[in-house]
């Protein structure tokens, strides 16, 4: 990642960010193309699996079970990892995690590190922290390299530079790698990255990674990747430092059989990703001599405590929800103002910030449910969104907040719905109030206030002269109402 980070206190709301991003033609084309490609790829490899739904259910159950007994499994992982020569650290929050990593890097005697892409390190703004301590971090994922060199921010969990096309990437590489004659074919760009990074892999003594799965039963760590830079960072340095959210633990080695099928098919639409590495502690003649792993909380235990949104922690970071989301498809990832974007971002980000910021994110959804349909571990994202919206409303209606226009309108509507006579009166009033806004052809093209958003882009047909119930009553067949109101 670059040294720019999303500052939750300063990011614009989703609505504001989206508005300006919608005008970025190049990004929209890139995102549309990328999501089309990956949606199709995923569909093919999922449809060929007759047991896909069973895998999803098992994935969901394994995660649910693990979260219910999270401390047991973390302790088991710690014990087994330590027995194999790993050193286990615990971090309560982002600041603590950063501090631990910075100290460990200094202890390793290196002032540079090579990194594999890790959303967790992005989440805690690790690179910025390292830089402030005189340690330079080389991103080695092609996309992260692009982001870092372009002084940019990731816009997707799995394909962070999805918003850039090859010409834009070529410009960045030409400049940063000093390659004036660089071609623009993807293969040329990959070759440039390969040469540039190989030198780093062979020289830099300390590596930093995230982890996909921590296996409690064996103390092993599993990293899933495509490019091979992961393997480089995990095996060549003398010291390896891994950071993982506490929710990454899985109970047993056998559980990999479920996730190794769910993850690649969901993330990149492949039967299997090119490289998956599993290592346990240290070995005298293979891989790093020193291995540290930092288990980080950073508000995850808060999410764990909320039974309705605990399922958020089941996420295996596949990005399938982003790829299918019709909202993400229009705005790209930056609109979410966080390293976690799209549907999972809309529920994870505000919760990681303990609802101090990100309040616009649960509303960045039409609740279409496509994300739930593709989530490999069956996170009911729409349900969590609704739950978080309630939390936001509770916040917003504290004290005088209860008088905010939306809350007042909602209270008024609720009162209407609780009485048929009030409801009917409102319908009649609506017809009257609307009259000055209706044009000769019977359409409304401008609405005031909160409803203005409708007519910004749509017309509204005038209200019919007669409601359905008025028509039905005229037929003379209505029953009396239960409460006579």
């Amino acid at each position, binding site marked *: 990642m670059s040294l720019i980070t999303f500052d939750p206190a300063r990011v614009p709301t989703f*609505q504001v960010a989206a508005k300006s991003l919608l005008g970025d033609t190049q990004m929209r084309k890139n995102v549309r193309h990328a999501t089309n490609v990956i949606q199709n790829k995923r569909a093919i490899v999922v449809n060929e699996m007759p047991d896909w739904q069973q895998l999803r259910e098992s994935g969901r159950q394994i995660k649910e079970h693990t979260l219910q007994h999270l401390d047991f499994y973390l302790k088991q992982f710690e014990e087994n990892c330590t027995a194999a020569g790993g050193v286990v650290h615990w971090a309560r929050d982002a600041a603590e995690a950063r501090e631990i990593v910075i100290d460990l890097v200094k202890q390793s005697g290196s002032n540079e590190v090579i990194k594999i892409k890790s959303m967790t390190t992005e989440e805690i703004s690790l690179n910025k922290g390292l830089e402030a301590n005189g340690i330079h971090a080389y991103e080695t994922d092609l996309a992260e390299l692009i982001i870092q060199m372009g002084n940019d921010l990731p816009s997707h969990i799995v394909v962070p530079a999805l918003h850039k096309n090859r010409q834009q990437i070529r410009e960045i590489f030409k400049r940063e790698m000093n390659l004036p004659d660089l071609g623009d074919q993807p293969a040329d760009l990959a070759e440039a990255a390969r040469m540039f990074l190989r030198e780093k892999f062979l020289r830099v003594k300390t590596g930093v990674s995230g982890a996909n799965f921590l296996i409690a039963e064996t103390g092993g760590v599993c990293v899933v990747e495509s490019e091979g830079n992961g393997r480089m960072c995990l095996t060549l340095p003398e010291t390896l430092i891994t950071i993982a959210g506490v929710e990454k633990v899985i109970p047993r080695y056998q559980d990999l059989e479920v996730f190794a099928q769910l993850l690649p098919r969901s993330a990149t639409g492949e039967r299997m990703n090119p490289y998956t590495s599993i290592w346990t502690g240290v070995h005298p003649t293979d891989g790093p001599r020193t291995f540290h792993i930092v288990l980080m909380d950073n508000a995850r235990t808060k999410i764990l405590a909320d039974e309705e949104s605990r399922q958020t922690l089941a996420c295996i970071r596949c990005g399938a929800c982003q790829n299918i989301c019709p909202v993400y498809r229009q705005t790209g990832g930056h609109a979410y103002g966080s390293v976690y974007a799209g549907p999972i971002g809309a529920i994870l980000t505000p919760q990681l910030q303990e609802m101090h910021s990100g309040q616009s994110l649960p509303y960045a959804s039409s609740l279409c449910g496509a994300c739930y349909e593709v989530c490999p571990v069956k996170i009911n994202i729409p349900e969590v969104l609704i739950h978080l919206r309630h939390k936001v409303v509770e916040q917003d209606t504290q004290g005088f907040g209860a008088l905010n226009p939306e809350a007042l309108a909602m209270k008024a509507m609720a009162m209407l719905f609780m009485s048929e006579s009030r409801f009917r009166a409102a319908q009649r009033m609506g017809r009257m109030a609307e009259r000055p806004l209706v044009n000769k052809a019977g359409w409304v093209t401008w609405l005031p206030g909160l409803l203005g958003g409708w007519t910004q882009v749509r017309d*509204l047909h005038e209200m019919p002269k007669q409601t*359905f119930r008025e028509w039905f009553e005229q037929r003379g067949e209505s029953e009396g109402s239960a409460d006579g109101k």
Partner: protein
Amino acid sequence: MKVSLFITCYNDTLFPGTGKSVVNVLERLGHTVVFPAGQTCCGQMHWNTGYQEEALPLVARFVSQFKDAEAVVIPSSSCVAMMREHYVKMAVQTGDKQLLADVESLLPRVWEFSEFLTKKLGLTDVGAYFPHRVTYHASCHGLRSLELGDGPASLLRNVRGIQLVELKGLEQCCGFGGTFAVKNAEVSSAMLGEKVQAILNTQAEMCTACDNSCLMHIEGALHRQRTGVKTMHLAEVLAGSEGDAQ
């Protein structure tokens, strides 16, 4: 059967024609339709926007009006989805054990209009005549929550005179999303743009769906852009018969 109609707050106010068509079709099939007066709203707008306390009393209201119904038919898949997905949880939240029991007993008798025809009555041909070029948009709630599947399309295929054209990306959300349409109007519009483009590509005269919420949103843009393409609820297409002036 004696069918109790829950018209929904927005259909009652803005789309009475849909209600009339539901009555029309059901009577044509030999059923009686009753309309429990006093009905207002299922609570979806409040619940989905985060105003849970305001939505809770509407559960009891719905139950009290419909609990003895033989069958409840609702021409709105999002309202039925609201009930199926949330009413039990909402009843639990009120702490009212009787309400919970009533909700659990009532829900199996609640049907979205098209699934009442295809799943409850087992019909795909309701004797309709509608000689127009039509395309069908699969509303998200109908598609994913109610799993309507091929039901609505099978009803449409059996309409005499219809020229049914498949909509590319019919499963992609139109961008309405309730208050989303207003709170995130720009993004809603961007999503709508793709849907409108797909509809125009079918060269249909009309787009139909099981939800007037989607259709109101889609028609809003179709009209703003002066495309001449209209929208019409599935019930109204099915109500079509010979001799209709159109």
